[in-house]
């Protein structure tokens, strides 16, 4: 505003190449890491598919449909697929507990030392090795609750893995709930909504995409765990009679990770590619779960107008 005029020559404003060297280096490193990460995933996928190619190209449908067998040309993963799906179902059925716990911790619990203790404990539980959960499952679901689960059954396995992923579900859901902007809550409270109404109509819908992400990671983790199943007594190999559905949920069971482990132990000359083919099945299953979640997420976000 003062009377003096400022002179600017073009040199001051001209874009200088290489001025932000560190920024450029950082960017290159970032891109390189992304490429590396993708390349590694791609390599694993390529390698597995290559090993499995004989089975995939010759008898993939059969491989999906057939139960375990001592004959490499007949053996399949039907039991493993069924076991994994049942486990996933049980895990999903317990998600409401984790989500409710997260909502309680974030929205209702007072900020006392006991609440904090619970939060810290949940975080630590998420880091407990999965085999320890296997021992817990063995003690609780296989032995103590034998009447309910029927011992070493797919129900016991599902419940064990549900407990295993529960901390992850609680943590990610709590984070999603915490990320809901306070202004939304204030707006709703300001219109005379009760706490329950605010949670039901604002907090949960806004947190849903985040909760969904957490739960998908949890399902994927549960689908891939082998160690706890081993501890609670999943079979690598068993014959299936003509049992009805209920009997199947109570008796011997297996899951895809167990199939993979079992195939991998067999002599490679005749069992080439079985483990790899079972891995492909597992990967595809996880991929489908992710896809469903991505679609659901997109739909919710669209409904929320973002």
């Amino acid at each position, binding site marked *: 505003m003062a009377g003096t005029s400022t002179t600017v020559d073009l040199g001051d404003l001209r874009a200088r190449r290489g001025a932000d060297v560190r920024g450029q280096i950082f960017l290159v490193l970032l891109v390189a890491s992304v490429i590396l990460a993708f390349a590694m995933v791609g390599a694993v996928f390529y390698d597995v598919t290559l090993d499995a190619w004989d089975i995939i190209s010759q008898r993939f449908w059969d491989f999906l449909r057939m139960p375990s067998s001592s004959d490499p040309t007949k053996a399949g993963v039907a039991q493993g697929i069924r076991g994994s799906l049942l486990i996933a179902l049980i895990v999903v059925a317990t998600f409401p507990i984790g989500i409710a716990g997260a909502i309680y911790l974030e929205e209702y619990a007072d900020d006392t030392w006991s609440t904090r203790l619970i939060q810290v404990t949940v975080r630590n539980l998420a880091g407990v090795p999965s085999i320890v959960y296997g021992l817990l499952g063995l003690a609780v679901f296989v032995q103590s609750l034998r009447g309910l689960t029927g011992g070493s059954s797919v129900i016991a396995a599902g419940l064990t893995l549900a407990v295993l992923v529960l901390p992850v579900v609680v943590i990610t859901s709590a984070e999603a709930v915490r990320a809901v902007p306070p*202004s939304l809550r204030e*707006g*709703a409270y*300001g219109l*005379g909504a009760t706490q329950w109404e605010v949670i039901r109509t604002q907090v949960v819908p806004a947190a849903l995409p985040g909760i969904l992400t957490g739960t998908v990671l949890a399902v994927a983790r549960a689908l891939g765990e082998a160690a706890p199943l081993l501890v609670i007594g999943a079979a690598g190999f068993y014959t299936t009679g003509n049992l009805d559905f209920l009997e199947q949920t109570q008796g011997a069971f297996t899951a895809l990770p167990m199939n993979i482990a079992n195939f991998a132990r067999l002599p490679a000359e005749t069992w080439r590619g079985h483990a790899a083919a079972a891995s492909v099945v597992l990967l595809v299953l996880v991929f489908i779960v992710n896809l469903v979640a991505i679609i659901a997420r997109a739909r919710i976000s669209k409904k*929320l*107008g*973002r």
Partner: protein
Amino acid sequence: MQMTEPTTRIETNATVRERDPVAPDPSSEVFAVRDLNVYYGDLRAVADVNLDVYERQITAFIGPSGCGKSTVLRCFNRMNDLIDIARVDGSVRYRGIDLYDAAVDPVAVRRRIGMVFQKPNPFPKSIYDNVAYGPRVAGQKGNLDEVVEQSLRNAGLWDEVKDRLDDSALGMSGGQQQRLCIARAIAVNPDVLLMDEPCSALDPIATGRIEELMKEIQNDYTIVIVTHNMQQAARVSDRTAFFTAELDESTGQRRGRLVELDDTGTIFSNPSDERTEAYVTGRFG
């Protein structure tokens, strides 16, 4: 029961009074604040505030940042309840009823005393559902088309949005969003509207529209507005309260105080306190 305007659309307005054993005095001010102190933990953010807010007037709160304007405003509809560490001392009477009486339900209070916030905060829902939100949580069932239309008309937004009521409210401009928030607040037919710097995120044209709107609805509502814009306070308000933050020698904390509350004309032309004069003439704050 006769002190609200006769055009009451919602019949559930008596909740607060029915719960309270004290019969309201119809001649009293809308708000009577006595010896109000608000603490955030150890911080005494507002000290010894006494003020009255009169019916169907626009009362403006002005003062430098951090002097407790929002804090006082949020006592009027118990929004401070939402802040764990906040503690309110003293009395805030709304039409004769102590808002902080144990028998008073804050949810019922907020249905009568609406609030518009500094940053427009539309819900991530359709325009229609935003306006219908308050009536719905108040238990109104069935068709809310009329309430939605009337509220949007009153907020001067109807013509702009009538063809896209089902679109997301997040796709509106900031000024439209803020008017939507006003429509949303008046859809529950409140008695009082509290506005905390409602125009601070808006351009002068959008601000002008909201000021016009306040003038139009002032016959139906009692309005309390916090503003940093002194021209705005001078333009729209009937009475103006000037707050300031004083250093408390013993604790070293700054605490908010009400300096004076008077007719807006007096505050801006002939205030009785020199701090007010310094502030409104731009020599301080």
